[in-house]
């Protein structure tokens, strides 16, 4: 049995092209040492992971699974401007922070962890990728405790950030850092499990048998709309956890972390999949 023993949910819509919300004071309270040489993506990762682990002593081999669609986009922009526009050698701090593993390094350092530490991306579905990876490791017993999160950063100006992601110019953008602390074993906290189905009908049958009044269904943003509508008609249920209508590349993480961090009754099911690759059903227990 895999349990969600803690969750944290940071979602901040960004309306202002002048500046992003400063995270410094929040980090001062959450981090055990003041970190230098970190970029905004690392700050967001530290903020979410430290909130999720707050007040707990984690096992030194607790794994870290960080997902992101865009990664440290702000730092990557600065580095590319130095290199191409200014024709300068990138500054070492900037260059090192272009690597996906840097954020996980600081999260591990802040929480005193020495276990597995992965950065995994799948555009529009990074949470599903990291959740699949962590579930595999926990089911096989390689990991008994893990912090799994998705982090998305906004790089100003907003118009350019939308353009870069091929998004409509009227969409509301958000930054997010959403984390779950998972643990193998029993307990009265919410459970998490993953079912995989080759056939859509098998998924429907399973959902039909597991479904209870008041449960919630989320269809992944990357899913085919018609298939998602079919499911939504079959399992009309409570509203989705609210992301304030704002968008980032790992919205599923916002839904799951908001639900897991809250105390509302019922189950939450997240469906993702495709006719060719099969279907995944992530189930957060009541």
């Amino acid at each position, binding site marked *: 049995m895999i349990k969600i023993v803690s969750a944290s949910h940071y979602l901040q819509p960004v309306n202002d092209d002048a500046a992003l919300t400063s995270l410094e004071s929040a980090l001062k309270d959450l981090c055990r040492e003041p970190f230098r*040489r970190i970029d905004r993506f690392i700050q967001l990762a530290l903020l979410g992971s430290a909130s999720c682990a707050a007040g707990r002593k984690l096992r030194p081999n607790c794994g870290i699974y960080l997902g992101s669609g865009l990664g440290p986009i702000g730092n990557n922009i600065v580095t590319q401007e130095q290199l191409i526009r200014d024709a300068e*050698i990138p*500054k070492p701090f900037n260059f090192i922070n272009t690597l996906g593993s840097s954020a996980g390094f600081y999260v591990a350092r802040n929480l005193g962890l020495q276990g597995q530490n992965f950065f995994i991306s799948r555009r529009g579905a990074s949470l599903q990728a990291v959740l699949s990876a962590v579930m595999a490791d926990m089911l096989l017993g390689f990991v008994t405790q893990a912090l799994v999160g998705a982090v998305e950063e906004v790089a100003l100006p907003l118009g350019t950030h939308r353009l870069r992601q091929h998004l409509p110019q009227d969409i509301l953008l958000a930054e997010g850092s959403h984390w779950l602390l998972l643990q193998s074993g029993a307990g009265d906290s919410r459970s998490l499990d993953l079912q995989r189905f080759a056939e859509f009908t098998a998924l429907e049958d399973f959902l039909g048998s597991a479904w209870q009044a008041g449960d919630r269904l989320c269809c992944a943003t990357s899913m085919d709309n018609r298939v998602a509508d079919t499911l939504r008609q079959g399992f009309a249920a409570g509203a989705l956890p609210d992301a304030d209508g704002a968008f980032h590349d790992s919205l599923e993480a916002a839904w799951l972390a908001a639900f897991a961090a809250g105390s509302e009754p019922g189950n939450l099911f997240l469906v993702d999949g495709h006719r060719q690759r099969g279907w995944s059903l992530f189930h957060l227990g009541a």
Partner: protein
Amino acid sequence: MMDREQLKLELKQMIIKECEKDLRPEQIPDDAILIGSQGSLALDSLDALQIALAVKQHYGKRIDGSNQTRAALTSVNSLADFILSDAAP
């Protein structure tokens, strides 16, 4: 000719900015050891690279792995000497 005192102040400001240290320039003595655990600034080899690149970009002087140039990073004094020296950049 660059004014040595002015240069040392600039170098301190540069070190603080590049290494994101929460310090004021007057808190860095001219002879304080910059890099390594025995130094009061707690800077490491990665900071050294960051400073070396900034020195190259601002003053055109290369600090690389060779012993003579690496010694330039000992203190603000030695860094100023190095920049003011006639050695080819």
